[in-house]
């Protein structure tokens, strides 16, 4: 009995020592030299492995940063400028600043604005629905409401609102990784500059049909009347395919377009004050009169 115990101890110990030695030797022999900065940068990353940077994950991004030696083509949209500054410090190069972005859902076709004209009975994903037909509303361009974007979001920033049938964004959680943009078969979602204190103006519609057809399909759609484009003093609005597109790099947040839009398709968000339509209209009127005077 005693002998058995002693033998057991001896054998196990010997086995342990041998294996440890083998492991040690193998680890030395096959050691892979890796730039320690990759680890360092990876630690600075948000760690969501969302792929928003265009790489497979945070480590692949870190690897690419170190290999390039600069940050000209590498930017982590989730970590933003703060993180990139730290990465720049590790690499000892200049950080390239980018304006923080946010996902913007450009459709206002809620159940109330955009009545259903048929009932979709297939698999409840936008992708299948989009491949099948133009959708269960009169609008062939807007949100299909099956929530592929919600499923794609790894930050839990998107939620379907059962009342409107549209996704809603939690700006705090959005890392602007662009997964929802890719997931949306209709191209409704766009990454736009977040704007100062989150203030931004955008057209909440992507319907390319002509005015009358659009109006029939949805009460809150852009009808392509072009009033906004004519009024904008910053040249930020272009009317293309019957939709007004607001260039966020040029927009000065004056909100004139928003006040003039006849269907309310242009949205301004996160402004401290509610939109005073009359004041803005008066301002535009005064400016137009002045221009006329100058001309005369």
């Amino acid at each position, binding site marked *: 009995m005693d002998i058995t115990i002693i033998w057991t101890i001896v054998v196990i110990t010997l086995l342990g020592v041998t294996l440890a030695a083998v492991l040690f030797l193998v680890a030395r022999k096959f050691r892979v030299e890796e730039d320690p900065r990759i680890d360092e940068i990876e630690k600075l990353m948000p760690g969501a492995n969302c792929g928003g940077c265009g790489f497979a994950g945070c480590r692949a991004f870190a690897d690419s940063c170190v290999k390039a030696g600069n940050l000209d083509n590498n930017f982590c949209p989730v970590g933003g400028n703060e993180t990139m500054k730290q990465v720049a410090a590790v690499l000892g190069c200049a950080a390239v600043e980018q304006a923080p972005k946010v996902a913007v859902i450009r459709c206002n076709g809620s159940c109330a604005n955009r009545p259903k004209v048929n009932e979709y009975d*297939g698999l409840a994903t936008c992708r*299948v629905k989009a*491949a*099948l*037909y*133009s*959708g269960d509303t009169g609008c*062939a361009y807007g949100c299909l409401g099956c929530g592929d974007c919600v499923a794609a979001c790894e930050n839990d920033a998107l939620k379907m609102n059962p009342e409107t049938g549209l996704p809603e964004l939690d700006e705090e959680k959005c890392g602007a990784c662009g997964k929802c943009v890719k997931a949306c078969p209709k191209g409704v979602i766009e990454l736009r500059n977040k704007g100062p204190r989150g203030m931004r103006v955008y057209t909440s519609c992507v319907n390319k049909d002509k005015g009358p057809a659009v109006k029939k399909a949805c009460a809150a759609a852009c009808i392509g009347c072009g009033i906004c484009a004519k009024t904008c003093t910053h040249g930020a609005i272009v009317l293309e395919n019957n939709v007004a597109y607001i260039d966020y790099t040029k927009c000065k947040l004056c909100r004139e377009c928003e006040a003039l839009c006849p269907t309310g398709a242009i949205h301004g968000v996160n402004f401290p004050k509610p939109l005073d339509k009359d004041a803005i209209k008066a301002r535009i009127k005064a400016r137009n009169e002045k221009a006329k005077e100058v001309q005369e």
Partner: protein
Amino acid sequence: MMKTFKIGGVHPNDNKISRNCAIEVLPLPQTVFISMAQHLGAPAKPIVAVGDQVKAGQVIAEPGGFISAYVHSSVSGTVKSVAPRKDLSGNLMTHVEIAVEGDEWAEGIDLSDTLVTEIPTDKAETLKKIQMCGVVGLGGATFPAHVKLNPAPGCKAECLILNGAECEPFLTSDNRIMIEKSKEIVIGAAIMKMVLGGCPAVIGIEENKPEAISAMSKAVAELGYEGISVMKLKKKYPQGGEKQLINAVMKREVKSGGLPISVGAVVQNVATSLAVYEAVQKNKPLVTNTMTITGDCLPVEKQHNYLFRIGMPLSYIAEYAGGIPEGAAKIVSGGPMMGKAISNLDACTVKGSSSLLYLSEAFTKRKEASACIRCGKCADACPMGLEPFLLNKLAKNAMMDELEARSIQDCISCGCCQFTCPANIPLLDTINIAKGQVMGIMRARAAAAKAAAEAAKAAPQK
């Protein structure tokens, strides 16, 4: 022993309620809208302008590519517009709008009923005629007929298979033309046979159409062309699928990604054969076809088989046939297994239109999906021998390489898997999307390989 295909298949209730309704001719509407996408491949390019006077049978659009087809006016009248219009799934497509004035046909078109039994002997000219008359496959895929009837050099047709299976439940238009136009179809087959170099022709018909089988056999015997025979097939869906029919008739299998001609087969629908007859013998372009008005919630006296002209609004046809029946929850164009649900009744008929199918809610509404019980019934039903349960899972996880390894690209979208699934899982919805993605990847890879090969070829020359 009746023949059928070997792998998989299902037996939906065939519901051929309108089988005895003789073909009636639809009166002309006030306006027709002729779509430029009447066929598989590139849309046709319109060659008429607003205000032009056109006659029935006159070319109004030219092929937009190699795989494309001529489109003819189906009526005589004035072109009102050439503009985008919604098709039956609500997507925009260019249509030529023609206001109907009288019914005058273009010159040289023989509208009489006299049979022309003499088979032409000039292959090239016959093919040209088929192409100029805009004949496309009317079995569902609307593939331009002249392309299929002109195999690439090196391929030899060993058997022309005429598809009279009509395996989709409810549809009876092929059944009716086989009964009423049997001789025309047989002559069409003889013409195609000649074009293909005289290979034998087999007309495959499922056992549930005994009248069609006897009518066709009689026509074959009376006309006495050599090498044409009628084959009775066991009833099984999807017998009318090209690959399945080849398997049933010739006991051969088309390799994955291959064309039927690679095993010596050319498959044409019986309706296409009729169109070929009319094109070659009567000079009549493809502007008419037969469609079935049927459904489980349509009383039998309201069911019809109509000879329609392309461009007729579906709403007009529905109205003429007695309106949309009470209790219709879904209207399908085509059969219940592979047809397209119509979301826009203002859409118009095209060459390949085959039905207006009214289905009741109880019949068609999908039941809630539950967990997969791994019964494997989808794999047993799949006529391509795939494993839909696995493809569904892989597709949900976007595992593209694995999907390709599991041959998702072989799927023919017949719907057997979803039809069978006891858990009501929408297998085909997911598989169809993933199939598109995988085929896109494969095409991109093939293009890249081709480009690389060309680059390698070009390099040494420098």
